[in-house]
């Protein structure tokens, strides 16, 4: 079953899950609810897109949730300070990119393990998000770029549109560009990449910066969605993002993975969360079901590996 399952694997899990939910949860199967799921998935999916690229290089970014907070806060602060809203929006994204760049600098130049670098930045960036606002959320009901969180384009919620665009861009970068090949090469075999003449440090730096920018964009959407700067935003989002990436078949060892898989992974988590709410499952049991499904999903997905290696 090798090839077929390889392509389909986790997607089949998503389809099964949707069928199950359609039967169990009234209201699940409707266009409106589909859009709800897509909208609620969008933030995690955008974080996970950047995370995919980082994980393909064999790294990880635990700080995405904190970057989201810092970027959201920056964007709102800029807007409130009178900066035109497109610039405020870009400022937020840039703050994310800068935070990612700093992560990348430690990983690329000092060759520190990404896990601990981003564990550190997860902590200090959270602190920065708090201290920018002295711990208080900052409400901005007339936020200039509120549409990016609450609007819709031709009936599709804007966050969903942004998410789709982000995925197209990431897919293009990873599949169709020289840089994308280099990302896979660095993750697949860093020493070989270096000896093949690839500037490994530059690739790593770029990847963390892009990941930071994606988290920054997610932060902008978050703040537009809640019309305020929230220093507590995005706590523990990194785990959902990583779960989406891994469910999507990207290897934490690096060198292998596809951003489309990540989208499917994010949708699985989103459908699960949404479906359990619609089914009125008590919160505690939601956690149990969610945890078990995550494990089962990767277990099912791993079947293809068994199929392939023949052992």
């Amino acid at each position, binding site marked *: 079953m090798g090839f077929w399952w390889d392509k389909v694997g986790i997607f089949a899990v998503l389809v099964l899950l949707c069928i199950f939910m359609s039967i169990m949860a009234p209201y699940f199967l409707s266009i409106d609810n589909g859009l709800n799921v897509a909208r609620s998935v969008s933030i995690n999916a955008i974080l996970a897109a950047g995370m995919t690229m980082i994980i393909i290089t064999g790294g990880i970014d635990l700080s995405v949730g904190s970057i989201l907070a810092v970027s959201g806060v920056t964007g709102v602060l800029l807007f409130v300070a009178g900066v035109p809203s497109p610039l405020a929006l870009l400022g937020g994204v840039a703050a994310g990119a800068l935070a990612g760049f700093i992560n990348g600098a430690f990983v690329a130049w000092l060759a520190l393990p990404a896990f601990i670098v981003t564990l550190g930045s997860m902590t200090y960036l959270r602190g920065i998000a708090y201290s920018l606002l002295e711990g208080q959320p900052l409400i901005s009901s007339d936020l200039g770029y509120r549409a990016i969180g609450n609007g819709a384009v031709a009936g599709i919620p804007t966050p969903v549109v942004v998410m789709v665009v982000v995925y197209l861009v990431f897919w293009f970068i990873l599949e169709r560009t*020289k840089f994308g090949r280099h990302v896979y090469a660095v993750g697949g075999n860093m020493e*070989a990449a270096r000896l093949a*003449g*690839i*500037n490994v440090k530059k690739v790593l730096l770029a990847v963390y910066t892009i990941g930071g920018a994606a988290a920054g964009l997610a932060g902008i959407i978050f703040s537009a969605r809640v019309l305020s700067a929230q220093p507590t935003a995005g706590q523990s989002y990194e785990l959902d993002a990583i779960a989406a990436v891994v469910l999507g078949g990207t290897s934490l060892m690096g*060198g*292998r993975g596809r951003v489309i898989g990540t989208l499917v992974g994010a949708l699985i988590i989103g459908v699960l969360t949404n479906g359990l709410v619609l089914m009125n499952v008590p919160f505690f049991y939601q956690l149990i079901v969610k945890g078990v499904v995550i494990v089962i999903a990767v277990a099912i997905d791993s079947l293809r590996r068994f199929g392939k290696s*023949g052992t």
Partner: protein
Amino acid sequence: MDQVLEDSPLLEVRGISKRFGATQALSDVSFDLRPGEVHALMGENGAGKSTLMKIIAGTYSPDSGSIHMMGNQIVMASPRDAMTAKVGIIHQELNTFPEMSVAENLAVGNEPTTSFMLNRRKMISDAREKLERVGAVNIDPRTPIGRLSVGMQQMVEIARAVAEDVKVLVLDEPTAALSMSESKQLFGLIHQMRDRGMGLIYISHRMEEVWELADRVTVFRDGKLVGTKDMRAAGRDAVSPNDIVRMMVGRDVDDLYGREERELDKVRLEVRDLTDGGAIGPVSFDVRAGEIVTMVGLIGAGRTEVGRLLYGADKVAAGTISLDGRQIRVRNPGDAVAKGIGMLPESRKDQALFLEMSVRDNTAMSTLGAFSTFGVLNFRRMKSKVDEIFTSLRVRAASQSIESRSLSGGNQQKLVLGRLMLEKPALMILDEPTRGVDIGAKSEIYRIIKEIAATGTAVLVISSDLPEALGISDRLLVMREGRIVAEMDAQSATEEVVMEHATGVYADQNPRMTHEQP
């Protein structure tokens, strides 16, 4: 030798088949090993030799067939079972624990304990003993094994397998990373073990070795056993290397090296007093356009290091490198590629290949810039160029999109060569270009190297395979302890002379060399 023993094989496999996905690695293979013999296995890359050995060693379980030791059927479900059955194996790929010391590596799985505590002192003394047995006395058991060169690590692996009190020992290309003198040491050991009545299975792509060691030779092709030549029974003269090559490749490879005269042009590479500030150098030498120069020496002589310095993979402390008369500074490999230097690294698996990426990506990896506009890849251009390279190198791959992992060693090596050819470098450094490559592929790689040289590229080869070095080069540089100790014309050099310089032990005081460097 006892007649009864002679008749009943020590080890026998019957009707073994093994399939990996779409690949039938072995089909219905029966094979036996007698006590007191060296049974050589030969065959092209991917013929199934290692797979059969892994089945014998309990690493893989066969899809069908059975294994017998001294007439009794046994089950080899895990490497443990093989140990219990006293079957030892030296795997083709290194299986070391890079973070552990040599002593710990030697002890893994069999750690000495007193009551239930580790006995570290015994671990070290055991290690000394084991290393001594294979003549690797210069290795300190307390060094982390990761700091040793590949060749040294291979010696440790041999020590580990040999030290076991085994009846059957499998050696899967043990000399691929060894140079002449270590190999000689190993051969002595193999002779001893055979004389003690052990059975040895010896896999190699080097015909000279097989010729020296084997009592019987069995040839594999495409997962099937093609035939066995009994050289002890028939006598060595009854069989010729060419018979075996024909069984392997299905055709004659009459002139492996295809020696021919080459036109040498002006000096392309000029190296003066290059050193890493430590054990390597200072070295000075030239390579001319169209010339093939090979660096030879014992393992650890520093040849790889010199190559890496030229390529910018390690930091140069002092000295100059000039290409086509212009002095250049190579800061890193990317810089080297940009300035016209290409390198095929020593270990293709660790340093060259992206195993999970397609063969196309692997081939084009260093020259993606040439296939893209504003960073966007032009797949059609890439595909046709890679096709071209594959045709000229005769790469055997089902398609350009299959993972490079699934290619045989020889074909993988060709991928990396193809990568270099796309770079069109002025200087090409080839570190052990035929390590682990079968004889058919070898002859093709030699042909390719010569074609590359013929285009005016300066080719610097590093090789531990002396016949190869003598066969393909114009000139030899002999290294010892980080320096070039001799330079000689390859036409007139002999293995003995090269060995004398490499080891520093001179048999006669009249070496046939062109000149000796200080």
